[in-house]
Every structure is written in C-alpha cells, then in structure tokens.
C-alpha cells in the first residue's frame, strides 16, 4: 500500500483526562488507509467516544488531558495542528443529529462549514445545491432541520460534513436514534457516500448487526481503553470475542452457535446474504429446531387497560390517531413499535391524560379514565420518559423518589416506607443517600423508575427504555423490567428496538400512520413482509436463516430461538447467583 494512503496512525497512543485518575486510552495502535471502512465497536465506557474525540481533534483542543505516544493525521501529529486544520481532514457526524444542527434551515446548516471558510455567497449557494443533490435533500433546503424525518436528518447532517471534501468521515453512533428501516438506509447511505467520495470511513457503533448490513473492511473491538481485536469481520465473527466483551453478535450467528455449527471465516458470516452453509450445517440447524421445546402461549389475562376507537387530532389540525382499539392484559409486558410519527408516543400521552382524545373511550379495569386528571391517572399508570435527565429535579436520590408522594401529601411514615421499598426493588438501596449526579445514565433511569414505582402504579409506560444503551446495560435494564413484571406490574414499552420486542415483549402492537396495523407476537410480526415494510421495521435475520435452511415455518423458528435465549439467560442468572441483586 502506498505510504501516501496512510490517513490516520495511532502509535502506542494513550490519553488521560485531567479530571481522571487513570488513562482512558492505553497503548492504542491503529492505522487507517484511504478508501477503508472500519467499524469501532465496544461496550459503553470502553473508550470509543474518547477515541472519536482524539480523531476529530476535540481532544486535545476542547477536552484537556495528557496525551502519550503519537497520533498522526496525514503524517502530522495532531497536537501540532489546530482543531480547524484537523476538521479539514476529518468530518464528524455526531450521534444526535438534532443537537448538531446549527442552521435555521437545511440550506444554512449545510452551508455552515463553508460560511466559516469565508466562501463567497454565490459559490455557497452553488455548493449547497450540489451537495444537497448528492444526498438527496434538494427539496428540503428551505425547511427547518427539526421538521424532517429521522432519515432526512441523517442526510442533512451528512451533507453538512461532505460539503468540506474531507478525507475521513467519522460517524459517532449513527444508528442510536433511528428506527430499524431508517438505520438500514443510513448504513446504505454511508456506503454510497464512501463510494462517491472515496473517503475513508470510521463508524463507531455497538449495534453490530445493523452496521454489517453493508460490507465493512475491518472491525476494531475495544475494551477498557485498549484495542482487543482488529480483524476482518469474518474472522471476528468466527471467534467468541464479541460475546466475551459484551457486544451482541448478529442473531443468525448466535443461532448457528446454539445449533452447534462451528462458525468459521470461510462460511463468510459477515452477511446473511453471503453466508455459505454446508449441508451438514443446515442439518444441524434443522435438528436444533426440531429438538427445540415449544413453549405454549400463555392464557389471555384479564384486561386492565382498554382503548376503544380512540381518535386524536392536534390543535394544528394534524390527525395523529385514528380508530385505535387496543387491550392490555393484567401482568402483560407489551411493546408498542412503529416509526417516528406513527402515533405511538401520542397514544401514550392520551393514555396518561397529557392529551385529550377527540373520540373513543379509555377504560382502566372497566371504569372510564376520561374523568380523571393527569395526576389521578398517574396513581394507576406511571409514565417514564426516555431521557431521565428530563425527569430528575432533586439533588438527592431519596428526595427524588419521594417527590410524587410528598406532593400528594402522604404522611412521612408512608413516604419513608414506600420510598425505601421502591429503592430496594430498583437496586438503589446502597446509593440512597447519594446525590443523583453521581450516578450513571442507567442508574438514573432506575431512579426515575423508582420514583414512579413509589406511587404504586399498576401499569408503567416506558418511552424507549433502552435507547442509547450498550448490550450490557440494555440487558440490565430489561432484566430489571422483567423482574418488575413478574411482580405483577403491567409494562408497556414504546420502542424502536427490534431486539427488545423479540426478546422481552410477550406481544407487540405495531403502529403505522396513526393506526394499529398488527397486534401479535414479535416472532410473527418480524417474519411478516407486509407489516415489516409498512411499519419500517427490519425483517429479522433469523427469518432469512430459517428460509435458507428450508424451514417451512420461519416464525416458529424465530420463536424457538427467543425461548431458547430466555431459558439460556435464566440459567445464566441462576449460575451467577445473587451477584446481580446487590
């Protein structure tokens, strides 16, 4: 390879933030060449965001700390460059495209980097049009970025970076807030842009299977501040490294492993389309499926919440819900899925009383909810927002959890008892006298759940309970919710995450354009082409695997996989013993 093609080179690189006692990155050796596409994966806290900041120059220019070793961009040490010089070579698309928009309109946002470079106005207009055409947002130039759909936002934020002709495109968790279909489109767009511009691409993401939708040259696996593997995708998938470091393997790879198939690089496991199974492998999968215990479905429980013919229209005339009829059984754990704007959040707002339905009726245990105020409904139905930082308003954990009870004027004894109980259930007892700010994101989420639990609701509605969480924290939160559920609390989750609906929801309700288009088990929904398309979901790769192995009932195969995983997980929990409870 030509030496000029070396774009980025880490050499025994290390970094320690000023405020921390230990280095966040250790002994990093990594090189990136022109035209390469690399995925950096790793659990939360493994140092991948720090690595992103080192590459785009925010370290050392915005976040201070001590750098050791060498980091060169196009042959120059970054510490000798300025942030602006680095930004000419490295274009960063931040995780949350919403918060990275600066311009009032799409056009201005795309033009932002050029404006700062003093490009004359006529040329600005031309360049913006050109780039907007490349990413296909020409028609939205006059719109406010906030009004666009998730996929369009991704395109605009990419345009804002492409406008600069950079050598390296750096994507920081590009899939974090996208629904499955949009995520798939984003990955295709990244691929397409790389081919058009010839830039090298670095994607930092823990949703491995989704990124692998398009070919990736190498995967760099990070753990605890070091690189533990830098392998081709096929080699990495044939090892056990992913599972060992808390990254979820593609589901079909896991299924093959369950079936006792030895996954090797020669099978080309990087993509289900290219996967090459021998007759023997297929037989193993089929045998596993046959041997799999079919767990009979549970009996329909008593209805706790019932919506009949709900219709809702916003003040501005936008009709968000049409004829929603839905029943939730006592003790169920259901998922409400659908794209942004499908009406799932609006529906939960109507249930909680934040918005008032125009037509139809909601009943809770047979009695109508319409007479109850937001506060009164909250005694039965708790609502947990996606971002815990939006809910927490007290400094101390105890006070935060007691807030709802205090405002209801309960006696101090009752408050104490219920608060303590909620804290214990949520595993926050050891932290009860801590300030909230000392907690991690996942722990804060627990605080918000505890503060809702203290009110003793029978139903809890959670908006995106696992958004932005890596596999370990995701499992932690979901196991915790399952535990609550087993104590009899009905749980309704609003989510984009197909793994979540597959693994944890006993039933999934699919919203599309304000109506319910399906209400069934996740296994059946994710193997139904029509629904998958209409709801912008993504067909699970397990379905493809089942078809590939000639299994004539793919949804049963998917169900079988889920049941197997669940029992596997429970077995593991028993093995680990009380470790999780403390």
């Amino acid at each position, binding site marked *: 390879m030509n030496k000029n093609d070396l774009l980025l080179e880490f050499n025994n690189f290390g970094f320690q933030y000023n405020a921390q006692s230990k280095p966040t990155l250790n002994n990093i050796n990594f090189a990136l060449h022109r035209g390469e596409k690399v995925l950096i994966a790793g659990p939360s806290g493994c140092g991948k965001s720090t690595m992103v900041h080192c590459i785009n*120059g*925010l370290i050392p*220019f*915005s976040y201070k700390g001590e750098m050791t070793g060498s980091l060169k961009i196009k042959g120059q040490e970054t510490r000798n460059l300025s*942030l*602006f010089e680095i*930004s000419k070579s490295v274009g960063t698309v*931040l995780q*949350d495209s919403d*918060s*990275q928009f*600066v*311009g*009032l*309109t799409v*056009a*201005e946002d795309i*033009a*932002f*980097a*050029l*404006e*700062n*470079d*003093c*490009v*004359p*106005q006529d040329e*600005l*207009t031309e360049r*913006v049009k050109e780039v907007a055409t490349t990413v296909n947002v020409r028609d939205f130039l006059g719109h406010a970025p*906030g009004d666009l759909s998730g996929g369009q936002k991704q395109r605009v934020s990419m345009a*804002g*970076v492409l406008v600069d002709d950079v050598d390296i495109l750096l994507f920081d968790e590009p899939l974090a807030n996208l629904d499955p279909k949009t995520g798939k489109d984003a990955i295709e767009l990244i691929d397409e842009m790389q081919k058009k511009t010839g830039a090298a691409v670095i994607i930092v993401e823990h949703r491995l299977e989704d990124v692998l939708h398009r070919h990736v040259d190498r995967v760099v696996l990070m753990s605890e501040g070091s690189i533990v593997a830098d392998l081709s995708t096929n080699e990495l998938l044939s090892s056990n490294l992913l599972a060992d470091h808390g990254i979820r393997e593609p589901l079909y790879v896991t299924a093959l492993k369950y079936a006792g198939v030895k996954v090797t690089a020669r099978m080309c496991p990087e993509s289900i389309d290219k996967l090459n199974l021998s007759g023997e492998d297929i037989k193993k999968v089929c045998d596993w499926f046959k041997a799999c215990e079919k767990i009979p479905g549970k009996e329909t429980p008593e209805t706790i919440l019932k919506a009949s013919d709900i219709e809702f229209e916003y003040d501005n005339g936008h009709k968000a819900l049409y004829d929603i009829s839905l029943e939730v059984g006592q003790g169920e754990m259901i998922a409400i899925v659908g794209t942004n704007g499908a009406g799932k959040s609006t529906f939960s707002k109507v249930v*909680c*009383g*934040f918005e008032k339905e125009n037509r139809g009726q909601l009943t809770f245990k047979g009695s109508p909810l319409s007479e109850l*105020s*937001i*506060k009164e*409904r*909250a005694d039965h139905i*708790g*609502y947990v*927002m996606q*971002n815990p*930082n*939006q*809910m*927490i*308003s*007290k400094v101390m954990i105890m006070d935060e959890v007691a*807030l*709802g*009870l205090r*405002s*209801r004027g309960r006696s101090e004894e009752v408050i104490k008892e219920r608060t303590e109980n909620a804290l214990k259930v949520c595993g926050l007892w050891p932290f009860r006298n801590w300030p909230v700010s000392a907690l991690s994101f996942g722990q804060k989420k627990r605080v918000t759940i505890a*503060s*809702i639990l203290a*009110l003793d609701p029978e139903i809890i509605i959670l908006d995106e309970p696992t958004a932005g969480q890596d596999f370990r924290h995701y499992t932690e939160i979901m196991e915790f919710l399952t535990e609550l559920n087993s104590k009899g609390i009905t749980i309704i989750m609003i989510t984009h995450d197909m793994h979540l609906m597959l693994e944890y929801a006993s039933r999934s309700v699919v919203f599309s354009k304000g109506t319910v288009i399906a209400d069934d088990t996740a296994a059946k929904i994710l193997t139904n082409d029509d629904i998958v398309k209409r709801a912008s979901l993504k067909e699970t790769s397990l379905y493809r695997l089942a078809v590939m192995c000639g299994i004539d009932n793919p949804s049963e195969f998917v169900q079988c996989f889920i049941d197997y995983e669940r029992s596997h997980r429970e077995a593991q929990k028993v093995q680990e013993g009380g470790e999780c409870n403390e």
Partner: protein
Amino acid sequence: MNNLFNYVDRQSPIHRLTGATKFVCLLLWSFAAMSTYDTRLLAVLSVASFVLLKVSKIRWKDVSFMLGFTAVFLIMNNVLVYLFSPDHGVELYGSCTYLFGLSGKYAPTAEQLFYHLNYFLKYLATIPFVLLFVCTTNPSEFAASLNKLGVKYTVAYSVALALRYIPDVQREYHEISQAQQARGIEMSKKATLFNRLKSAGTILVPLILSSMNKIDVVANAMELRGFGKNKKRTWYMGQRFRWTDITAIIICIILVGVAFLCNYMNGSRFYNPFI
C-alpha cells in the same frame, strides 16, 4: 402553545428589508416616539405603525398574544399612574380643567386625561413596530446583517442561535411539565400561586440541566465545522443593502428630526392644547 418570538415567513416589502435596517429603524422609531409627547406626531406614528403591520402581511393571530399581553400591561400602567399622581397632567400643562362637575384629588381633569392619551399613544406607536421587527426578521439574516454593520460575528451568531433554540426549549418545557404533572406536581389553576411557583422549580431544574448539555454538544458541533476559525465569515442568508433599506433609514431619521422639531416648536416635550 404560543410562540413569543416567531419569525413569520411571508412575502412583503418589509420582509425584504435587511434585518439590520429594521433594527436601526426600530431604534430610531422608538427614539422618535419616546423623545416627544407631541400628540399629533404620536398619532401619526401610531397609525403608521399599524399600516406597516398590515403591509407586512402580519395577521392578527400571529401577534394576538403579544398584543394582549402589552394591553394588560398598558392598562395596569395607566391605572397606577392615575392612582399615584392624579394631578400630573395639571402640573405639566399648567392649567386645571375639572370635568363632569367633579372636584377633589381623584377627580378627572382634562389635562390628566390628555396626558394619559399621550401615554397610550406612545405604546401604540412603538409596540406594533417591535412586533413588526420580530415577525419579519429572519434570525439568520439578522445575524448576517448585524455582522455587516460591524458587530462581531460570534456575537451576531449567538443572537440567531438563541432565537433558533427558543421553540426547542418551549417544547422541552412542555414535555417535562407533563411528566412532572404525572408525578403529582399540580400546575393547573387548582394549586395556589405560591405552590405553582414552587412546582415550576421542578420543571426548570431538569430544563436548565438538559439545555446546558445541549449547549455543550452544539458548541462542539460548531467548532468541528470551523466556527471561530477566521476573523470573518460569509453568510448564506446575507442580503445586500438596497436603496429601499437606505430610504427606510432616512425616513426614520427624518422622523427623529420631526420629533426634535416638535419639541423645539412646543418649547418642551409636551404639546399643550390648553393654552
């Protein structure tokens, strides 16, 4: 939800003026209206500012909230002035004409009522113009034109950015408030004012924290795209000054001149019909 500061995108001659022109005109216009109590000039300015609102195609419902708000304020203000100095007009105009055959400290005098009329007209002359500025000025274009007038672009841009984030903050306030209400924080009219103020705290804390967080992200995003690199920058939304801009400013300068002239002719800031 009401948007207090909202650019309304329509086509009108006023929209086509640059933001800086409108800003300068606003300052000159207010200065003219504030510097004099000449009833004739104030009446002309009041009528003119409503005509301009009409010309700019601003509709009643775009500004009704702000107008209502100022109306309440104006009435309160007038009542207080009357309560605290019911003979202010008499002092100013040097005569005392009791009306309706009443007399006493709080009896209405023609002078006092005339003073209130002037006071009223001052508001009518300026408030519509402020709304005109807010509703017809695209924040980005405003930033661009401020920069052209010599304001540092970092300062000019932060003005635009603040305007850009107002709707976001409003939406977030709404969301947080709903979730807090669900936890039993009473925000409706059922609670006493004191309790409502106290509850507002439970919304403001998360709102401020999450806004701070956002500011951090935006600052990084801007730096990564080269904001602050050069001493200058260009503007996508920038507009050239045209003869209409210059005309508008000249008209406003003349208005200030007229105001001074009136004051000179009247011998004081007050036009006195009682002599």
